């Protein structure tokens, strides 16, 4: 094949996918920035250039700051816990344990369910007075409590749902990593008389580092991307205690129909995700050098 012909083939093969990617990923990301500098067109009133007005509005918007801090707490509360649980689950179902396959199924099943179904199920679980959680706690004389209805417990209650849904998913990646490890390492360690904890700390965990970073990046994206359960369970309430960033964007954009302000809010989310992308890029670079 001549060189120009090869060029042509390459470009033509890419064209359909690239066109859609540009239309629904690159263009919206750029247009989003553009539109955030304009006012929202309403009725016959056209959009006018307003400069950084929306970003000023954003800086003074207490709900935005709460949504952002909620989201950061949500990420901080769910990510380490689900990763730790995932690692533990993987170690258990990878080892010799009674009922391995049943356990693996139990851990993994929540992953398959849609978040909206999960949210519905947990909604009943948390129901004041009648819910399973309340019934269970009553056995121990714990006074009744509205888990999703009170400021202090609503966000943690949502975090539990996210951990429940995600830990099994991350477990899979650790399981794959465990399987790729040479059994000779464990043999050698056993001969040397290393304790299991020592072996984990000094051998297993460092070897799992690429997996952990991969899972971490995915967990960060999910913490900012998935708000289905907020829509179903709390609608951001009570008093914005469970409003996450994307949920707030949804509310502003599609319940108050202020698309320009929603665009400005989306920019914040894009910057956060961009930072995560950069972190991953740097890490991927490191990993390729490592190998």
């Amino acid at each position, binding site marked *: *094949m001549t060189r120009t012909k*090869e*060029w042509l*083939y*390459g470009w033509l*093969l890419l064209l*359909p*996918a*690239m066109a859609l*990617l540009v239309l*629904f*990923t690159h*263009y*919206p*990301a750029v*247009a989003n920035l553009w539109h955030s500098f304009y006012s929202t067109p309403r009725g016959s009133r056209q959009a006018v250039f307003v400069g950084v007005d929306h970003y000023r509005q954003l800086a003074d918007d207490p709900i935005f700051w709460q949504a952002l801090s909620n989201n950061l707490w949500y990420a901080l509360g769910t990510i380490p816990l689900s990763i730790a649980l995932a690692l533990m*689950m993987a170690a258990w179902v990878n*080892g*010799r344990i*009674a009922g391995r396959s049943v*356990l693996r199924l139990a*851990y*993994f*099943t*929540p992953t*398959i*369910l*849609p978040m*909206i*179904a999960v949210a*519905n*199920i*947990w909604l*009943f*679980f948390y129901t004041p007075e*009648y819910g*399973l959680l309340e*019934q269970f706690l009553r056995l121990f004389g714990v006074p009744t409590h509205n888990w999703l209805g009170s400021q202090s417990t609503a966000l943690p209650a949502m975090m539990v749902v996210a951990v*429940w849904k995600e830990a099994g998913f991350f477990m*899979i*990646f650790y*399981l*794959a*990593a465990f399987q*790729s490890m040479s059994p000779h390492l*464990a043999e050698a360690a*056993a001969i040397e008389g290393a304790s299991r904890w020592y072996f984990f700390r000094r051998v297993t965990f460092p070897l799992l580092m690429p997996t952990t970073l*991969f899972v971490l990046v995915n967990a960060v994206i999910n913490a900012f*991307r998935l*708000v*289905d359960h907020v*829509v*179903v369970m709390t609608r951001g309430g009570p008093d914005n205690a469970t409003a996450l960033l994307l949920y707030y*964007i*949804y509310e502003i954009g*599609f319940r108050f129909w202020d*698309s320009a302000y929603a665009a400005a809010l*989306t920019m914040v989310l894009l910057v956060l*995700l961009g930072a995560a992308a950069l972190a*991953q890029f740097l890490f991927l670079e490191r990993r390729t050098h490592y190998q």
Partner: protein
Amino acid sequence: MSSILVDAPTVLRGDIASRQSTRGSINVIETAAAWLLGILWVLPLVYALWKAFHAPEYSTRFVLSAPWTLANFINAWHAAPFARYFLNTVMLVTMVLIAQLVLVTLAAYAFARFRFPGRGLLFALVLVQLMIMPDVLIVENYRTMTLLGLKDTILAIGLPYMASAFGIFLLRQTFKTVPRELDEAARIEGCSPLQTLWKVYVPLARPTYLAYALVSVSYHWNNFLWPLIITNSVEARPVTVGLQVFSATDQGIDWSIITAATLLSTGPLLIAFLLFQRQFVQSFMRAGIR
């Protein structure tokens, strides 16, 4: 990372005892902890099953003699156009999957086996979508769909996801492992590049296709926020949105019925998962290793 790919299929086999023996057995306390966690993990699901299969008066009374019933499912099925919602979801996931397979295959082939100016830059542009997914670009994509006149159609739900960076990346990795000799042999036989793709690359990448297809189907079956925004009629709503519309209307709908509807909406995927558990887990694993 290729060693992982080779190993992946062995993961779920129980017969790798020789490997396990070196890993040391797990003590009683840990086994108990693992089981406690397992029970905690299935508890919400078991509770939902109980609720869905019993009359409302038993929804929080756990007695073994409680009669089982399908009434909640029947009521739910008649209370909302679930048949139509299912049809929409099936059409959605089929359409998205077919479009993805075609687009992703062509793009991955270009990246894996062709040299052309701008390849690195274009690949970087593709990877952008791994981080900035259509899920977060809802405001602008809604505007685009309005301009295109596609609002409230099944096509509009699927369109932003059809060029999948994840799929391109995954398949490119697989295509790169195909020996060049096979490619060259096909060319000598007189195959055009597209024929080579079809006869050499696609058959060899079958496990990757399966993995990708399962991940894609479960993603789009479960997707919610974008379909919620872009649809507002029964004719376009997928089952996730239909379920939400159904359970959010305050008509005093019984919770047992909502639970039944919830299980109903997940049913096909859940049953498929239980039947093909091993393939599912392997596929998710394979898809995650890159």
